[in-house]
């Protein structure tokens, strides 16, 4: 490593004291907190696998049955987590700036209801666009996104410019949008949704199939490799300390293995036999013996991943993201540095509104209906996901990836307990305790790392 550090002797001396694990972490520059979270998630998964296979009376190493770690359950888990995960990405930015958004659940209900009414009643009944027309889903989605953005802007304006605390504005929003959702149809459930719109909710047709899943995996792997290489090039260009080559290779191959493994699991979950038969019937063919059509990645999961990557990009690589964290760390310093903190705050809530609208589309599509109870208590799940994912309520700290893992972790507990036949009240007890435990562990970690 001739091209590396100017302060190499110091680093070497220090790394000798740190032991193998310390050296490994230093070389790979991995975030230990993120690693801990992934470890906790894996532990929960393994625990649930043992308990569920015990209950079913099968071997805990049987991954094909109906136990927790089966393609079927993991695929469903990914779909169930996506709505909360999408909103959690935005909630990270909200909480990082020392704000809170309690309105996301109600807003999801309201936006979902408007999108439902738009496609099921307004477009065909008032504008005369036939149900099933290809523009229906696009118009409905666009209406929802604009509405979410607009409501986010209103709430953001009240918080940033009228200086009303976010807690109050969004607590008001929680009541207002839930009431508004009821008002749209006087509480009536709206169904069914447009067939194309419904793809956003997942299910056998709302998945991209084996081939495209492999394409996505390949593109993602190439992306990872490209990012590692370009980051290394940048560091060489400016003569910065470099990671050892083995660490880069390890990071790259582990990331690619995880991506490929996840897609492999999604591709191991076949369509139910009834749907396969109907599929061949529609093609005018006889279903072959032992026909296997894989789900592949579900579209809502794809949407959540795109949202996660996009918000991560915004928070790490753009000026806006830098300001979000600076405001969270020291609002006064941000103002003194010439940052328009009010406009930044308003934009955060606009982004949050947009993400809520996307989640509303996903959950309305998944339910194939818009109900006025949709999204009830989602605000708490979203906040809990962000907090379990390491977002600090005192501001300045948080990662989008962590919040998404937090969403998956909570959904894992919920669906795992359903699998185990745990009563609903006890489920709430467990999830609530895990939230408190996670935050406590994080506090301990932070105190020790100081």
């Amino acid at each position, binding site marked *: 490593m001739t091209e590396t550090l100017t*302060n190499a002797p110091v680093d070497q001396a220090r790394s000798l004291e740190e032991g193998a694990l310390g050296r490994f972490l230093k070389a790979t520059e991995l975030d230990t907190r993120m690693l801990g979270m992934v470890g906790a998630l894996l532990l929960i998964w393994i625990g649930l696998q043992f308990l569920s296979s015990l209950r079913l009376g099968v071997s805990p190493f049987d991954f094909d049955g109906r136990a927790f770690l089966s393609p079927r359950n993991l695929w469903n888990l990914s779909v169930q987590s996506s709505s909360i995960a999408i909103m959690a990405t935005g909630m990270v930015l909200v909480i990082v700036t020392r704000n809170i958004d309690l309105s996301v659940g109600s807003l999801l209900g309201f936006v979902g209801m408007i999108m439902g009414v738009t496609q099921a009643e307004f477009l065909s009944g008032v504008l005369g666009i036939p149900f099933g027309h290809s523009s229906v889903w696009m118009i409905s989605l666009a209406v929802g996104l604009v509405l979410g953005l607009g409501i986010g802007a209103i709430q953001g304006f009240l918080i940033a410019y009228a200086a009303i605390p976010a807690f109050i504005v969004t607590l008001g929003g929680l009541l207002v949008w839930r009431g508004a959702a009821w008002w749209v149809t006087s509480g009536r459930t709206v169904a069914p949704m447009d067939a194309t719109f419904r793809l956003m909710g997942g299910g056998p047709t709302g998945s991209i199939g084996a081939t495209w899943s492999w394409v996505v995996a390949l593109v993602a792997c190439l992306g990872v490799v490209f990012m590692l290489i370009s980051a290394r090039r*940048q*560091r060489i*260009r*400016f*003569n*910065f300390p470099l990671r050892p080559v083995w660490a880069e290779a390890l990071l790259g191959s582990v990331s690619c293995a995880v991506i490929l493994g996840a897609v492999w699991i999604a591709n191991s979950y076949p369509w139910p036999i009834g749907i396969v038969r109907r599929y061949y019937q529609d093609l005018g063919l006889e279903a072959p013996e032992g026909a296997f059509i894989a789900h592949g990645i579900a579209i809502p999961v794809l949407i959540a991943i795109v949202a996660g990557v996009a918000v991560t990009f915004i928070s*790490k*690589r*753009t*000026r806006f*993201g*830098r300001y979000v*964290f*600076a*405001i*969270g*760390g*020291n609002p*006064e*310093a*941000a*103002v*003194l*540095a*010439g*940052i328009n903190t009010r406009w930044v705050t308003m934009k955060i809530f606009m982004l949050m509104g947009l993400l809520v609208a996307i989640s509303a589309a996903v959950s309305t599509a998944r339910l194939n209906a818009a109900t006025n109870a949709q999204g009830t208590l989602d605000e708490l799940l979203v906040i809990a996901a962000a907090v379990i994912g390491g977002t600090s309520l005192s501001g*300045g*700290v948080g990662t989008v990836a962590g919040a998404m893992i937090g969403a998956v972790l909570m959904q894992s507990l919920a669906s795992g307990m359903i699998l185990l036949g745990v009563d609903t009240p006890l489920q709430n007890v467990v999830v609530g305790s895990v939230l408190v435990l996670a935050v406590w562990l994080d506090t301990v970690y932070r105190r020790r790392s*100081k």
Partner: protein
Amino acid sequence: MNEVKGGSAPVAEQQGKTPLVEMNGMAKSFGGLRAVDNVDINLFPGEVVGILGHNGAGKTVLIKMLSGAIQRDSGTIRINGRDAPINNPRDAKNFGIETIYQTLALADNVDATANLFLGRELMTRWGTLDDAAMEAEARKVMGRLNPRFVRFKEPVIALSGGQRQSVAIARAIHFNARVLIMDEPTAALGPQETAQVADLVKQLKSEGIGIFLISHDIHDVFGLCDRLYVIKNGQVVGMAKTSDVTKDEVLGMIILGKCPPGAIPGPGAMREAVAAA
């Protein structure tokens, strides 16, 4: 700039020149309290001007009006003889006015590089943050100020007081400041670091930068300043060349508002003192 280099430039000599900063009739009230009341202050290039006064005398409010952090009620600010409409920190920075606040005003959770470029990030041609270029610049400027500084990747909360101070100073001088405001620059520093700050002030002065030193402690700044303004209850007690007054006389100005013969009294001076002068 030669005649002002290193020494105290006589006020008379400067009267023909255009001041770098000219503040006239500056006023700011909070409720019924007149924090700054009709203050006139000026600063010439390459000059170090001390603004002294008790805690609560109004010096920080005055200086925050210049740095755009507080909006003034009335008064005019001229930079190089031209009206400078400074209404927020960004305006002030555009006029080359940089401030090192007593609190340092660092975002504790982000690293030194991000703090250095906060509000003035370098961007790539795709409109994203150019972190590598910023870190390279940060390494250069920190290398000059504090060669032992290596912790570019850590949140500044993990740094020592002196290191944090270097980050704040680097941020103020990296962007070609013409006017530097230092609010209690040495209040939190040890003797060695205080000496470093003094060296820095001399160096910047020799580069023609005008510097305001804000302090409540006369001993911190007396040796560095060419001129002093003393503020009491939001008004100027008096202005003096450092060479014309003693530390005790300045203390009298700060504590009693008594203007010595070597100073030019302002509106805040004690009546008898004015009469005596």
